[in-house]
């Protein structure tokens, strides 16, 4: 079974599922975005686990060794960096939208917001 050795990736997948459930089942908008962030974190864990190679060291020149078989894979680090930046931006933008919604409707509950907007239209 590869699953018992790939346990980092397996945990990342389970975390992804937890975030997805959070996104689907919560009514509170802020909790929804917490779920989105959990999904992001799962992705970073998955990428970092893919880049690791047993017995090698971080990709920073040590002892003057210039050999690809001495360092781990530096590419996932760059990809995770991109992911973190985009996640921060998206989270800030969506939380700003949520703040405006709260100011307008006075609630963070999705169902309440839909009900209030429906009532506002029918008047």
């Amino acid at each position, binding site marked *: 079974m590869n699953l018992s050795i790939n346990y980092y*990736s397996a945990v990342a997948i389970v975390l992804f599922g937890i975030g997805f459930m959070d996104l689907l089942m919560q009514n509170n908008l802020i909790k929804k975005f917490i779920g989105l962030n959990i999904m992001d974190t799962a992705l970073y864990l998955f990428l970092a686990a893919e880049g690791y*190679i047993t017995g090698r060291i971080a990709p920073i020149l040590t002892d003057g060794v210039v050999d690809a078989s001495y360092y781990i894979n530096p590419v996932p680090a760059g990809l995770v960096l991109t992911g973190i930046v985009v996640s921060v931006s998206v989270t800030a933008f969506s939380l700003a939208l949520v703040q405006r919604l709260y100011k307008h409707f006075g609630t963070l509950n999705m169902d309440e917001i839909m009900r209030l907007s429906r009532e506002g239209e029918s008047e």
Partner: protein
Amino acid sequence: MKEKKNALQKLKQWIDGEITFFDAEESISRQQKKQQTFCFPKFSRLKKAQTSPAAYRLFCMGVAAIIILALLAVVNELPLFGAAEDPTNNEVVERYIESGIEETGAINFVAGMILDYRAFDTFGESNVLFLAVICVVMLLQKDEKNYNALEEREIQEDELFDKKSGKVLIRCAGKYLSPLVMLYGIYVILNGHLSPGGGFSGGSIVGAGLILYSVAYGHKKMQTFFTMKTFTIINVTCLLVYCACKSYSFFTGANHVGASVPKGIPGMILSSGFILPLNICVGMIVTCTMYGFYSLFTKGEI
């Protein structure tokens, strides 16, 4: 066939100057009509869901379970964790590590990768951060529409609280800690090509120092040296400098062929060509972004 002929005839007429395809007045009136009929999306069109909450929960659990099981089955087929013969460790990684030092001059291979080989990716990231701040400014900036008496009272209370001398502990901490935090952040930015760190992590640390200072001494005092104007100037200048640096390398051959930038001795602080200035630019953008988010979310202005 008929339509084609029609179009050909029309084209002939247009060449002769008999008819015009694009009628300016008509299009203007059409646009005005469009503007008049523009309305906000109506939620009433979406019918209210009739399903019970329990059924919805069961459905969600089923979907999530299917996704988790499918992905776990994929993970089961993936190469082993920590295996050196993983296909992701291909010739690209070899190139980045083995000729990274002479091509970029950076000891930190990740910094050499994200700020030299893949610098346009990082440029895009900086732009994404800048755009995010602009969007948050648009949404949360205090103006007539987005402001009421309650919030004004809250802000006034905050200012009164800032003036009082009750915050001894956090003031003491802010006074002695925030310079140290910012100094550490600057160290991380400047050593981005020599050690773990770089513009993004160092910028967040400096931003945290600024936030600590703002918490301790209040927003008014912060505005004596960091306003919307400073924010705009720093952000735009950094983006333009980044763009200019990378355009230089791009136009002189993407891999610094021809007119190359002096690399210096790897391991010295002044080395590795453009990576140090680019790290400083990215660090300043991230600093401004972090403080900008905090300030906009708490006070509604930078």
